[in-house]
């Protein structure tokens, strides 16, 4: 039995067999396979090489037009390596002689070759090892890509352990069988955490070396309440946890009885609770948890789930399905927010040195108009099916907003010509998630019909702290005085301009921040559906008056630590079982 401590990012308790997912950027652990599986592993190597050659040939085609002989040479060299028979036979004989997985054989062989370069004194030659690592990654990506298929077709309940989970990996999860997530790195707002909360399964991150400790098939306990993972528990621990898990489910049920009750404060102020969802099949769960609409419908899954760019019809079908659950309840569709953390590097031709400050989100859309218009066309077509709004993410300045709106008008005109029906009065709003948009909120408010504050990005951009980097996780906090000041400004400007404002970042699902947000004037929260009952319970236990007093008190506090401990104490008095 081994106990690993991490950060609890999604509540609940799961006891299941472990499935380890390898991530392309890390060393592949050595795992043995049975002799009857060896020929299968050899075939996987062949297929992976074939697919890698195909992928690379396509990419080389893209670069033919560009006059960069250096890049063309790199592709040519890589292709020759992939076609090199002696490389392949070295890998397959490793599988056959040492009974290892295809991944391990590929990784070990190529790393051995790379090390023969790094030993050479000449720096120019020793740097060529990076080419070998590139080839390794390319082949591994093919192998792991097929492993994602395995995750899609699970037949028993598992707890997933990974170094780090990427959106492409989680998009393939079969929700019936994935019972918990555990990752070596990450924080409260890392992708694994968000996915786990939206799926309503426990998750623990920042476990450091979990993936080196567990092997596939080990029994693990993922305790998303206390932030621990127990590998191969002894019988005593196991039975203790089984009892604990039953208790927890009972508490959840108690919260579920709140579903039919309104989210109204004790002094009669109604708070609108909307859901953040990504997949159409989350829509039903959102309704079950009692949300009054969708405040953030993420659309990235369409791009991450399939190997081709989604067609207009695919967009439309997904939106139509989600909207059909909500009928007259509002659904706010956020346009593509791909890039940086949400865009796998494999889809890029060149790595951006600073992706979070790079071509992501609305910026990416404005430079890929065909793709952007396809999505807008589908949203507009679906707009007649319910109460649909459009929300542009990551707006940095007014020009960008005007440009996005102009493109929307273009699409509307096209649809007029095509004779396709759509809601002409569709509401258009933006996410406030850059400091620049927060600071110019009043002028932006003149051109939109609503704001939604995306606290995750707003926090990371304001504090210049990467939300996925656990080494600076103490810096990243939405209740840092600087972030709160921006949030306050945005709320005041929205009120002045008389447009609705909501908060849709992770902050809106944190029990300890709810009173503060209400106190600052927020009346609409959009959050991950499983957290709705708990947040509702807080709302029903407080008065708007209490909240204002709490918010006022934080204005005088100068440190994040002071504010967060003050808020935690205040919430603990209201809802002790949340902690």
């Amino acid at each position, binding site marked *: 039995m081994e106990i690993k401590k991490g950060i609890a990012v999604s509540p609940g308790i799961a006891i299941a067999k472990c499935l380890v997912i390898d991530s392309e950027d890390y060393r592949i652990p050595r795992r043995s396979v049975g002799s009857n599986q060896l020929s299968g592993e050899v075939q996987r190597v062949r297929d992976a090489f074939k697919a890698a050659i195909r992928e690379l040939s396509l990419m080389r085609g893209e670069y033919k037009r560009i006059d960069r002989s250096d890049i063309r040479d790199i592709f040519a060299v890589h292709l020759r390596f992939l076609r090199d028979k*002696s490389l392949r036979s070295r890998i397959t004989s490793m599988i056959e002689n040492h009974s290892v997985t295809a991944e391990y054989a590929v990784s070990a062989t190529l790393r051995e070759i790379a090390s*023969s370069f790094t030993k050479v004194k000449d*720096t120019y030659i020793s740097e060529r090892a990076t080419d070998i690592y590139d080839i390794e990654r390319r082949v591994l990506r093919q192998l792991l890509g097929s492993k994602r298929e395995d995750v899609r077709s699970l037949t028993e309940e598992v707890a997933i352990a990974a170094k780090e989970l990427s959106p492409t990996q989680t998009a393939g999860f079969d929700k019936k069988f994935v019972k918990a997530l555990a990752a070596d790195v990450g924080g409260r707002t890392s992708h694994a955490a968000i996915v786990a909360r939206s799926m309503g399964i426990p998750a623990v991150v920042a476990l450091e070396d979990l993936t080196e400790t567990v092997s596939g098939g080990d029994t693990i306990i993922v305790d998303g309440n206390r932030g621990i993972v127990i590998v191969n528990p002894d019988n005593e621990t196991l039975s203790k946890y089984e009892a604990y898990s039953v208790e927890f489910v009972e508490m959840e049920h108690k919260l579920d009885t709140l579903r039919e009750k309104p989210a109204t404060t004790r002094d009669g102020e109604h708070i609108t609770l909307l859901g953040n969802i990504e997949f159409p099949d989350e829509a039903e769960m959102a309704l079950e948890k009692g949300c009054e609409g969708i405040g953030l419908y993420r659309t990235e899954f369409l791009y991450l789930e399939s190997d081709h760019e989604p067609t207009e019809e695919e967009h439309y079908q997904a939106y139509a399905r989600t909207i059909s659950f909500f009928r007259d309840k509002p659904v706010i569709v956020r346009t593509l927010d791909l890039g940086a953390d949400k865009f796998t590097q494999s889809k890029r031709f060149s790595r951006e040195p600073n992706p979070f400050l790079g071509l992501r989100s609305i910026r990416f859309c404005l430079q890929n108009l065909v793709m952007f218009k396809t999505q807008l066309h589908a949203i507009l077509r679906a707009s007649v099916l319910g109460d649909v709004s459009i929300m542009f993410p990551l707006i940095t300045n007014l020009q960008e907003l005007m440009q996005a709106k102009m493109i929307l008008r273009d699409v509307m005109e096209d649809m007029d010509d095509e004779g396709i029906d759509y809601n002409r009065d569709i509401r258009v709003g933006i996410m406030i998630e850059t400091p620049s948009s927060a600071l110019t909120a009043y002028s932006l408010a003149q051109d939109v019909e609503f704001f939604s504050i995306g606290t995750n990005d707003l926090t990371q951009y304001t504090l210049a702290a990467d939300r996925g980097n656990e080494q600076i996780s103490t810096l990243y906090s939405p209740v840092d005085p600087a972030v709160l000041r921006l949030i306050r400004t945005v709320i005041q400007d929205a009120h002045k301009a008389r447009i609705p404002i909501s908060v849709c970042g992770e902050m809106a699902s944190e029990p300890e921040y709810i009173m503060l947000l209400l106190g600052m004037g927020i009346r609409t929260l959009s959050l991950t559906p499983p957290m709705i009952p708990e947040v509702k319970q807080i709302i029903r236990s407080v008065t708007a008056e209490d909240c204002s007093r709490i918010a006022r008190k934080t204005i005088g506090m100068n440190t994040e630590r002071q504010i967060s401990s003050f808020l935690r104490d205040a919430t603990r008095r209201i809802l002790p079982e949340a902690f």
Partner: protein
Amino acid sequence: MENKICEKEVTIGNADGLHMRPAMQFVDIANRFQSNIQVSNNENTVDGKSIMQMSMLAATVGTKLSISAEGSDAEDAIEALRELVEDKKFDEPAPDQEAGHSEKK
């Protein structure tokens, strides 16, 4: 068909040595010939038609390599490879042609 064996010693003449691109040029030429081609430095003998094996020789400037070919077109193969390494120097600058080259790297 007549089977010939030819051998030739060549010296790497370009400043950056036998890195990826030169290795690619070498195997591309070697693969045009039907003969078996082997290349050795002091320690190892490798297949001159495999980019992996060739690049693992990691031959720096000034390294002596011995190329041997066995087959009907062995002579032509040796000559073509010698030309690439010694005359064309992989279409790359030699150390003396580019002053301060090695310090730059």
